[in-house]
């Protein structure tokens, strides 16, 4: 993924380029509505969650949760012995594989709907369907189709393959990936489609005059335009995969087979079935930290500075 990082062209002197705006004219107040919302609905609950992760909150203390005993990092220590690391590994590997697999599909879909033809609107709408169906439905449908005697195995049997069990044991990991890919590729598609719109018409025409064959043209001229948005899409898609709870929950139920005991699953079960809110909050915070650290290193590496593409125009 890192190889896709956008070229770094910006120099500090570029800032000088912006003229006509003095320090006082910066409309920073425009940030306040969003900032206020995020403070109230995300930051405050997050602080509360941090607090919960350090108290012994379970069904016995739930009613008077403010008085629940403070136990420091005990919950965090216990997290490590509760299979959390394994769950994080499953989550991350599942998420990365799913993302890598959806990128070519999503880009291909964007490319084939770039040109106008009769029925394109319909095809575009069709491409959106997996994304529009709620996870809950997607999971129910696949769960039904992947039953031991479901239609997938029936079809496989016709060509002489024994499908086996999709929803239990080691195969369940790949089932989860498969269904996630099916449900999530339109996200990459939509992001690529939006990005393709920013390709100037002249660029197309210039390369058409060159008579360049499609692949070099695609690779050298078009794909660079997609790099930024698709990269962002990859990042967000990976995070979405990691946090996808509904899909594994409905596909496999709780308790889940060990091979798909992903992080949201273990957090949910600890919290809402074992009723250990403190422990589950610690688990979630730990996984948040473990995911956020590489994420921030990565974000630093790609330099999020936003002016370089404006420069390229």
């Amino acid at each position, binding site marked *: 993924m890192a190889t896709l990082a956008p070229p770094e062209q910006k120099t500090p002197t570029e800032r000088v380029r912006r003229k006509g705006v003095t320090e006082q004219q910066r409309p920073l107040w425009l940030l306040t509505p969003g900032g206020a919302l995020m403070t109230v609905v995300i930051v405050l609950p997050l602080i509360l969650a941090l607090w919960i992760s350090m108290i012994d909150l379970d069904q016995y203390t739930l009613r008077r949760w403010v008085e629940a005993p403070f136990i420091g990092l005990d919950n965090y220590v216990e997290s490590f012995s509760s299979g959390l690391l394994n769950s994080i590994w499953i989550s991350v590997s599942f998420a990365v594989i799913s993302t890598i697999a959806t990128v070519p599909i999503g880009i291909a879909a964007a490319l084939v709907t*770039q*040109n106008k033809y009769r029925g394109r609107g319909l095809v575009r*709408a*069709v491409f959106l369907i997996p994304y*529009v169906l709620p996870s809950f439905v997607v999971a129910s449908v696949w769960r039904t189709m992947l039953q031991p005697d479901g239609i997938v195995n029936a079809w496989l049997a016709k060509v002489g393959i024994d499908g086996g069990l999709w929803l239990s044991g080691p195969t369940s990991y790949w089932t989860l990936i498969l269904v996630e890919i099916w449900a999530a590729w339109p996200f990459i598609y939509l992001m690529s489609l939006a990005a393709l*719109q920013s390709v100037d018409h002249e660029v197309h025409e210039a390369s058409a005059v060159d008579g360049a064959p499609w692949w070099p043209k695609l690779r050298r001229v078009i794909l660079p335009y997609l790099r930024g948005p698709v990269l962002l899409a990859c990042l967000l898609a990976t995070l979405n995969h990691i946090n996808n709870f509904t899909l594994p929950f409905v596909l496999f139920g709780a308790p889940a087979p060990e091979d798909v005991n992903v992080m949201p699953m273990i957090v949910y079960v600890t919290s809402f079935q074992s009723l250990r809110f403190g422990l589950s909050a610690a688990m979630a915070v730990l996984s948040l930290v473990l995911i956020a650290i590489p994420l921030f290193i990565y974000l630093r590496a790609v330099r999020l500075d936003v002016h370089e593409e404006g420069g390229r125009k």
Partner: protein
Amino acid sequence: MSTTSASAEATRLLPRWMLFVLTAVLVALVLVPVLYIVLASLNSDVGVASGEFWPSSWSLDSYSRIWTTADLSTGILNSLIVCAFTAVASAVLGTTTAYVLVRYTFFGRLTILRGLVGLQSIPGTLMLLPVFVLFSSAGNYLGVTVIGTRWGLFIAYLTFALPFSTWVMVTYLRGLPRELEEAARTDGASTLVILWRIIFPLSLPAIVVSGIFAFLLGWNDVLFASVLTRPETHTAAVALQIVGSSQEGGALPVYSQIMAASLICAAPVVLLYLAFQRYLVGGLTAGGVK
């Protein structure tokens, strides 16, 4: 290459045969499971439960029964209201926020940008209890009922959608040339006027995209909707969940009705998309910048 369709040919990115093959494969990839859903919705509950692909008896029964099995109509109406507001508000707020982040440098800007991505990695299961506690204490201490209202749900969804909307707009706006705004500013236009007259129209494709995503976020959420709503404010996803829940002991699975319900729930979004998709194309070059 014929000269008459040179323009169309120029933007064609893939060879014709490949376009055809890829489209066919992708459409099949989507439609086979969808076909299963459609067929199952036309089957009987028992038929689907016994693993039929082609219904042994066709009927529209599920489509009429589903309205009483779960309060789907209330759910869809609530979802439409909440999600439409979320979509519009998050697209507008996202655009203004992104505009400031893209066009101005200030202390903490990069931190905000990184933070916006970081926010995406917070698991919903972690936030559920704290958000609920916070919302309910608004009721207990401030006397404002948040839980069970549509706007409480709207506030939650808006906030969850905002980081993403902002990011979509950031990536889009930074590709936007600055000349028009600068000309307008020289003419004495204020920031709000520039946003309204220049930025919004120019970035409509991205606004639509971020609006769609915000809409879908709310449309698909079950976790928060199931605790933040009351029966009269249930969303479609919650109604759907109720159809899908099998009860302990005895009930036959209502598979056919689930499929019918999910198609009904998907329909408004697909229609909405069809209505909006012409704003997804065109975009920059049509804006008269060149």
